[in-house]
């Protein structure tokens, strides 16, 4: 005989403000098999949990329904409490009275009635729950870090230093990411490369880290602790072991006019190239799209000049099949290129550049060796305008969100300019200065107070060129929208930070969620910021949303700890919510007729046909069997099984049927 305990939570006033919790508890208390129905202000609090634990013993409960917030929030909490109270944790269900009821409806009788329906449904479900035992699966103690920017580097080093193997995948020829392109960093103005390159070298030399550059994820299968990842190592047309990195080939390559990606198109590179002098690994790759030999079948100058004969024109891509226990996604971000703003003339006027281009101009290793010079004529700009929010907070043409880093880097850019061009004038058109962070606002104040950067609150309407000057038309909204027109020599657009190209594709391969802007989605905005909704896959850095360096590094270390914690056990326990094919005694063995319909629907190849043999070895029966280690519990096989021979633990046919009936009928 079922004895169900129901606990209605007020969640402070979050639920009780619109739902009459007393009435819910009272009505539910009258249901058959409900041994206890009570209410409490905070079920998730310590006393709340104790209430459950004691009630289990006192009332000899066979099932518990906690009527509170979303199970996605607190199901683990209450299942653990039940376990501690001596009840199998899978005999506990949650009724979602907060997110799905009190928060979305007005206070009235219908809302309370709905709450009762929701609780009753879970009561009927839990009656049919069965005690399940967790499944144990082994853990492969090798992590994969996707992306070799500062976040990936930090994560890889932290995991490697815990003694675990790390495989790092980077799609470009060198690690370093956007940080390697930056000149100086806020709020300290220390040289970006000076602090980054030692970390890059450490990655290359770490005994626990295997680095694959020019490589991309091809496919991901499996689950936490047991991923199978295929990685495509794109052909570099080079024998990396033979190459000494002398660089002779790069100086002799006849193709020299390819826009340099690292310099944001502000410099040129040959077809065989090392992206930048401090690249790791410091070995060239051949860019097949521009190489004369690949295009026309003739040239091979690099092969001729190479002293160690390391060039391999016929090298194929290589597919690596890797066994991985956990994955850290650190694929970073991109900037929204400014050509979607025709009124700002980016692309039409050479002296209008974006923030990353300015970083290269200001960088000592950049195309101008750090001198701020106009791209059009190489002159020093005497009057420079920085435009913040060029794409951010602009749902019409750009993106709705705040890109977070622009206020700070724009202040930095204006400062760097003033430090290099003392007599020059710097103007910043801004919306709101968002400088929360340690020493951040002080940094912006320094730009204004010490470097006399002219901050104007207002958005620029249009820019046009005349006589080699850029006419920037805006207003000063603090002066009642008074028109401001500046004749500038150069304009820098602080363009929005957006998801990196290919993020959506990668998210789909990894089966993790992403938001409408294609940024990877965390499992919980506050409490699980580095986890994804797929167990064993973690996030680090700006692939989640635009972040500055300190935030990226902290999150990367956070992700590393999650991986290390996972690897601290030799096996992990999984929720036993898996599908099973029924078994009966011979001669039937199972009601399954082995039609095989379930096999192709399984995304995890967890279904196989089992053969039952008679004593003489003759196959007398075939039936599907599900590998509980591989099954992830989606239940698609259950829905396609015509003879209803498959069921899903935790969401059994009986349970979901009972839910439908209970939801629609008063008892």
């Amino acid at each position, binding site marked *: 005989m079922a004895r169900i305990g129901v606990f209605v939570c007020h969640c402070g006033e979050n639920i009780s403000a619109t739902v009459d919790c007393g009435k819910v508890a009272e009505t539910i208390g009258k249901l058959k098999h409900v041994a206890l129905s009570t209410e409490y202000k905070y079920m998730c609090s310590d006393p709340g949990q104790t209430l459950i634990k004691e009630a289990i013993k006192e009332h000899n409960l066979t099932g518990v329904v906690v009527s509170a917030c979303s199970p996605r929030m607190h199901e683990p909490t209450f299942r653990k409490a039940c376990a501690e109270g001596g009840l199998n944790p899978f005999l506990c269900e949650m009724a979602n009275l907060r997110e799905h009821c009190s928060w979305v409806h007005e206070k009235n009788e219908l809302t309370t009635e709905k709450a009762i329906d929701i609780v009753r449904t879970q009561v009927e479900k839990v009656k049919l729950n069965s005690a399940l035992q967790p499944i144990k699966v082994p853990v492969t103690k090798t992590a994969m870090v996707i992306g070799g920017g500062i976040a990936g580097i930090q994560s890889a080093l932290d995991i490697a230093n815990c003694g675990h193997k790390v495989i790092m995948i980077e799609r470009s020829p060198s690690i370093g990411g956007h940080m390697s392109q930056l000149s100086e960093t806020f709020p300290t103005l220390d040289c970006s490369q000076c602090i980054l390159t030692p970390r890059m070298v450490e990655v290359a030399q770490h005994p626990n880290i295997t680095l694959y550059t020019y490589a991309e994820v091809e496919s991901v299968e499996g689950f936490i602790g047991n991923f199978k990842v295929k990685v495509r190592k794109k052909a570099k047309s080079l024998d990396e072991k033979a190459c000494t990195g002398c660089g002779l080939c790069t100086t002799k390559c006849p193709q020299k006019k390819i826009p340099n990606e690292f310099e944001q198109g502000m410099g040129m590179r040959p077809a065989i190239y090392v992206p930048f002098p401090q690249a790791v690994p410091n070995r060239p790759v051949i860019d097949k799209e521009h190489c004369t030999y690949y295009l026309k079948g003739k040239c091979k100058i690099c092969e001729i000049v190479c002293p160690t004969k390391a060039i391999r024109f016929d090298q194929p891509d290589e597919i690596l099949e890797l066994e991985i226990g956990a994955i850290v996604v650190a694929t970073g971000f991109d900037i929204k290129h400014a050509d979607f703003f025709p009124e700002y003339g980016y692309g039409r006027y050479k002296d209008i550049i974006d923030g990353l281009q300015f970083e290269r101009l200001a960088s000592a290793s950049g195309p101008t060796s750090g001198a701020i010079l106009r791209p059009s004529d190489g002159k020093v700009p005497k009057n420079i305008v920085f435009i913040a929010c060029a794409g951010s907070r602009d749902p*019409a043409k750009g993106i709705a969100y705040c890109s977070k880093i622009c206020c700070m880097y724009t202040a930095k850019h204006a400062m760097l300019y003033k430090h290099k061009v003392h007599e020059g004038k710097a103007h910043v058109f801004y919306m709101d200065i968002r400088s929360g962070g340690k020493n951040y606002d002080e940094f912006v104040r320094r730009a204004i107070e010490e470097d006399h950067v002219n901050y104007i609150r207002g958005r620029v309407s249009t820019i046009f060129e005349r006589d080699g000057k850029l006419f920037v038309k805006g207003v000063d909204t603090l002066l009642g929208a008074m028109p401001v027109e500046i004749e500038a020599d150069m304009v820098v657009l602080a363009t929005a930070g957006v998801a990196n190209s290919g993020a959506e594709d990668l998210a789909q391969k990894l089966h993790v969620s992403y938001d409408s802007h294609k940024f990877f989605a965390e499992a919980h905005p506050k409490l699980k910021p580095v986890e994804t909704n797929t167990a064993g896959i973690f996030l680090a850095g700006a692939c989640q949303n635009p972040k500055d360096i300190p935030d990226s590094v902290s999150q990367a270390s956070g992700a590393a700890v999650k991986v290390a914690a996972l690897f601290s056990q030799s096996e992990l326990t999984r929720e036993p919510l898996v599908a099973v094919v029924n078994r009966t005694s011979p001669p039937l063995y199972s009601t399954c007729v082995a039609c095989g319909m379930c096999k192709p629907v399984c995304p995890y190849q967890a279904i196989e046909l089992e053969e039952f043999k008679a004593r003489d070895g003759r196959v007398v029966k075939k039936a599907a069997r599900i590998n509980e280690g591989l099954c992830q519990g989606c239940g698609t096989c259950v829905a396609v099984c015509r003879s209803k021979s498959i069921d899903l633990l935790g969401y059994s046919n009986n349970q979901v049927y009972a839910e439908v009936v209970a939801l629609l009928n008063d008892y």
Partner: protein
Amino acid sequence: MSHSEHHTERNNLAGGIEKNVGVLTQKCYQCGKCSAGCPVADQMDFPPSMVLRLLQTETPENDDKVLRSHSIWLCIACEMCLSRCPMEIDIPSMMDYLRQSSRTEKKVNKKAKNIIAFHKSFLNSIRYTGRLFELGLIIDYKRQSLNLMQDVSLAPKMISRGKLHFIPNMIKDTGHMARIFKKTSKK
């Protein structure tokens, strides 16, 4: 039931604009891009972004300022503001509504006299002929605005270029036109 419907209906201009034009004045975060691009902002007593700010305060005093402003009549409906607004606030439609409210509440700015006179003459012209009779428009406008000497130098050249007709080019079904005007005039 949307979140915003929580609020009681607002009895002010911003409320009227939301209800009748579908423009949420609260969306404006005062970036000023509209004012920076507006061709007539420098003539206005309140540039477009300031009109929005006044409306955002939702006070009777500021609503009154808006309805009595010259700005709402100076807006040429060139739509530059809308095409550049990051929040896609339909300022031109909002201005149409404000102009109509300004007239209903009899708060029309005196400096807008000529502009309204012209619009009225324009509509008068098509009310009776169906099509714009440019000469008739000019004569009627002069009568309404009392700018009798305006553009007298233009006429001879227009006539010599064949650009000015002396007889209106009328549609056949003038009765239809009259009915349309009657039905759409304020009840």
